[in-house]
């Protein structure tokens, strides 16, 4: 479903991604781990072109996203993204946050969009928060609305950029629970996270990144139980 070939990314002269090759299959949950500054987030943000790759190719269902003739706005509708800092629209209610893109981009009627919005809010356990503004929600609730907002476009892939890193510890669980549900329903997911428990339990495959490269990849059992690479070992020994 996603194929990445020799992806490089420079920020000015700094090479952040040094040749990434990987693929993500349909319904697969790929978890990306690694020390900060390893390029995990940049890699994820390249997948929906929030960062423009310096070189290399990315294919989503066979379509090259960096090709000039590709309409990135249409492609992004297929790829939901959840951010570390939630990025909810503060001037819109929870429901309006969810329905804005379906109404403006997909041209759904207000009532269709509201129906989808309410059902998604129910799905993330926030049925009664439809008319509430973001500043009245807790971090965990904000992130769940953000997930619902991304799901409203009916994406084929969900990208998570450290979705629990900005949360108070007691709120991490509620967000991870929503993500686990999604995975169970068969959503294709790429998750950048420091939640090793989540990686182990939900991940089909784990990528370990360091210094702009995928150093090691494998099943969670293999990566956590028997890491082959020295850098993977030292990283895991520090955080586990």
């Amino acid at each position, binding site marked *: 479903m996603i194929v990445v070939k020799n992806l490089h990314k420079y920020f000015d002269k700094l090479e952040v991604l040094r040749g990434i090759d990987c693929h993500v299959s349909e319904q697969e949950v790929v978890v990306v781990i690694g020390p900060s500054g390893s390029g995990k987030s940049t890699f994820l943000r390249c997948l929906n072109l929030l960062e423009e790759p310096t070189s290399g190719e990315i294919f989503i269902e066979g379509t090259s996203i960096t090709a000039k003739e590709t309409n990135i706005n249409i492609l992004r*509708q297929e790829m939901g993204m959840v951010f570390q800092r939630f*990025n909810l*629209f503060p*001037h819109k209610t929870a429901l309006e946050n969810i329905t804005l*893109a379906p109404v403006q*981009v997909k041209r759904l009627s207000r009532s269709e969009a509201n129906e989808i919005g309410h059902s998604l809010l129910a799905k993330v356990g926030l049925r009664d928060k439809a008319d509430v*503004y973001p*500043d009245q929600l807790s971090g965990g609730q904000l992130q769940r609305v953000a997930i619902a907002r*991304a799901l409203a*476009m009916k994406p084929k892939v969900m990208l998570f950029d450290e979705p629990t890193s900005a949360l108070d510890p007691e709120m991490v669980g509620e967000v991870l629970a929503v993500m686990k549900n999604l995975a169970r329903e068969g959503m294709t997911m790429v998750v950048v996270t420091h939640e090793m428990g989540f990686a182990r339990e939900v991940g089909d495959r784990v990528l370990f990144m360091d210094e702009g490269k995928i150093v090691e990849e494998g099943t969670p059992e293999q990566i956590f139980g028997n890491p082959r690479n020295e850098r993977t070992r030292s990283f895991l020994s520090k955080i586990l």
Partner: protein
Amino acid sequence: MELPLELIWNSLPIILEGALRTLEITLIAISLGFILGLFAGLARLSKKRVVRLLATCYIDFLRGTPLLVQIFMVYFGLPQLLGSFQTFMMDTFHIAQIWESTHINPFVAAIISTSLNSGAYIAEIFRAGVQSIERGQMEAARSLGMTHVQAMRFVILPQAFKRIIPPLGNEFIAMLKDTSLLSVIGFEEMARKGQLIIAQTYKPFHIWLTVAFIYLIMTFAISRLVDYMERRLKAGDDRR
């Protein structure tokens, strides 16, 4: 010195008539300036260099030169330019006269000069307002498949509008005072009315004092109004 209350009282209708014109031209200048400023401000943030350069030239020229000179350029300069253009067209293409007269009436000159001027200041206000919105807002909107224009319209600008109300209020007050410069081209706003009364009564101190006092009332009222709007929008922000 005794205040000639009767003189002031008798001049008041004329001065207030001028005050209305002052208010009128200020409202026109700020309204047109708002539209100009919105486009020039967004142009300043454009990815295209030519667009950015044009906007920068406009903004720098109008902010870097005195309004008085701009008024002269429009009122005296523009007719000369139009005249030369007409002569050129008639000589080169042997066409009939284009304009009966190239004279611009003071009201039109007032609208052109003050709108162009406030447009440049408001452009900078807009630019700052848009830039003050967290980057994640644009990213979240784009990640949902919105175009840049949709993201600006539904996500960035509504938030920016709220933040620019105080500086817009300041610009309104500054422009209200600066319209007194229009007296030099005979536009009968309040300062010009004052001059005319003084020419008949020879009581400059009393008339200027009265005029000053009415300016003060107007600017004070506007600043209260802006404060009120700011408070209401704030209250809207942390409604609970």
